[in-house]
């Protein structure tokens, strides 16, 4: 049966190839989209988790972290709790990148600015990520990521204008696994706060809790601290850093909806393409199908034959689609380095792509199979 199906597909090479291509394009699009969307999420999570904090605290009611505001007095109170070892305050801002020092043009879309304080763990730990120089010591020094320094032609000890008319000395260069930090510079939080017009409040605070004591595990301690923060300050949200993307649903749900929509479109396009191919193939083989019925094939077997043809077609298309999806994402990432996209390839993404291919095959073959099985054998055999 399979070799029969296979041979049929091989006989109509160009048509089969076109359908396979259509299906693979659908599947590839879906795989690339999901992988890059996951990449975005994972780079957010990587940023949040990178500092090794037990909890992150931000305003629970805002739609974007930019508008989050955690007050100094709240953080002072929390820092005094027994279970809390350190509170690291953080500002976060995006600016247009300054012109490169060497006079050329950069293809950098934006520059991330992070405000940190010396003496707080979030920054002090960051010293291990430095590849050159040291952490900033005062308000007119910054550290920059190696890739930013490369893009803008900065070297250690250069004076650079991060904001127009405001020069900073680059005292350290770093590499970070977080895409955001990779696109940014770090400076004194007061300097950035002033730029943002913020006084005594922060976008986000990283809370470092005590590690396990005799009675409780580290997880239990941080969970209790999170609960205590949310009870005492209901407008704040305190969660584990790795839970950020899943708890910040409002914004990311749009992305999911977008993916779902594209998936449906891809599915419809794939189905229509394969449907056309299968209808043509059934039509051309009218006599053959009549003959099969005469040989004792039931309607069910004719349906099986055509469905199998559709599924095999789409399985091949799906396999190529998964491959193209991977290659396509990598190509996209390479083609737009300034967007600093990352793709995360989850096994579940490839499973989803496979399911889409399978669904396309089945859906597209359903009607042709029905039509083929409905041919009356006598009429089909008379067909020229």
């Amino acid at each position, binding site marked *: 049966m399979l070799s029969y199906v296979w*041979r049929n597909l091989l006989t109509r090479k160009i048509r089969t190839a076109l359908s396979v291509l259509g299906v693979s394009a659908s599947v590839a699009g879906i795989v690339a989209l999901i992988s890059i969307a996951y990449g975005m999420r994972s780079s957010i999570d990587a940023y949040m988790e990178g500092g090794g904090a037990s909890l992150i605290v931000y305003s629970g009611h805002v739609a974007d972290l930019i508008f989050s505001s955690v007050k100094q007095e709240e953080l002072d109170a929390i820092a005094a709790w027994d279970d809390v070892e350190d509170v690291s305050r953080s500002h976060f801002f995006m600016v247009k990148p300054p012109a490169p020092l060497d006079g050329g043009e950069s293809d950098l879309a934006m520059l991330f600015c992070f405000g940190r304080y010396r003496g707080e763990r979030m920054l002090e730990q960051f010293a291990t990520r430095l590849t050159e120089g040291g952490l900033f010591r005062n308000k007119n020094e910054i550290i920059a990521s190696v890739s930013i320094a490369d893009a803008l032609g900065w070297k250690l000890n250069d004076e650079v204008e991060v904001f127009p008319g405001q020069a900073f000395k680059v005292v350290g260069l770093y590499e970070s696994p977080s895409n955001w930090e990779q696109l940014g510079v770090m400076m004194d939080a007061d300097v950035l706060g002033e730029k943002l017009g913020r006084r005594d409040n922060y976008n986000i605070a990283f809370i470092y809790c005590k590690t396990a004591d005799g009675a409780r595990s580290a997880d239990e301690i941080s969970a209790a601290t999170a609960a205590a923060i949310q009870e005492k300050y209901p407008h704040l949200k305190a969660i584990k850093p790795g839970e950020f993307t899943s708890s910040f649903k409002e914004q990311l749900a749009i992305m999911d909806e977008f993916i779902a929509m594209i998936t449906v479109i891809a599915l419809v396009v794939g189905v229509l393409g394969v449907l056309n191919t299968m209808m043509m193939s059934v039509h051309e083989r009218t*006599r053959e199908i009549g*003959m099969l*019925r*005469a040989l*004792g094939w*039931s309607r069910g077997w004719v349906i099986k034959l055509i469905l199998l043809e559709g599924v095999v077609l789409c399985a091949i298309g799906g396999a190529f689609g998964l491959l193209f999806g991977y290659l396509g994402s990598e190509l996209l990432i390479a083609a737009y380095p300034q967007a600093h996209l990352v793709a995360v390839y989850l096994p579940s993404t490839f499973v989803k792509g496979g399911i889409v291919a399978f669904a396309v095959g089945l859906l597209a073959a359903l009607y042709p199979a029905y039509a083929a099985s409905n041919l009356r054998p006598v009429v089909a055999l008379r067909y020229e």
Partner: protein
Amino acid sequence: MSSPLVVFEGVRRTFEQGRVVALDGIDLHIEAGEFVAVTGPSGSGKSTLLNLMGAMDLASSGTVTIAEQRLTDRRSMETVRRDQIGFVFQMHNLVPVLTAAENIALPMLPRRLPAAERRARCLSLLEQVGLRERADSNVRGLSGGERQRVAIARAMIHEPPLLLADEPTGNLDSKTGTAVMELIHAMRRRSGSALVLVTHNEELCAGCDRWLHLVDGRLSNR
């Protein structure tokens, strides 16, 4: 005595809302193992008769019974086709993309035989029709006579009690036609199948147990 293999009682078959009468009141019995020849002018209803016998079509009125199974609906037709009937057409109707052996195996697919056994039967059938060495050649490479031999092997693979042949030699020269006809007889004798042969060539009717002549959808004596 066991009941006849084929029983037609008052069978009419009309087309186009009764305006075309292809068969008009046919009564006939065919016993197991019989050789029945059917002749008649073009348009007299020969193919229509054969299609009814082959459970490919339903009578407009009257009853058709094959191997004690009355044909009334799709299901009964499918079962009868699968278990009782072998068809040889004027056109060989082989699947062009498959090899000779694969074509012969087609009727066996819905019968769920292990692949090895299926293959063995195909080869033995090909042996019988003298095409053992062409088993794995694509049928497009075979001559008309060879293709018809493959078609015969395909019709006989499940040793059907009733072999139906609609002008099996119609597309062949007379020498090849005679050889093909001899092959059909040899094969059906081996399995004890009855043969209903539709033909324009009266020479092929030699040795038949019964000769049915159709004129305008009716049987006439001959």
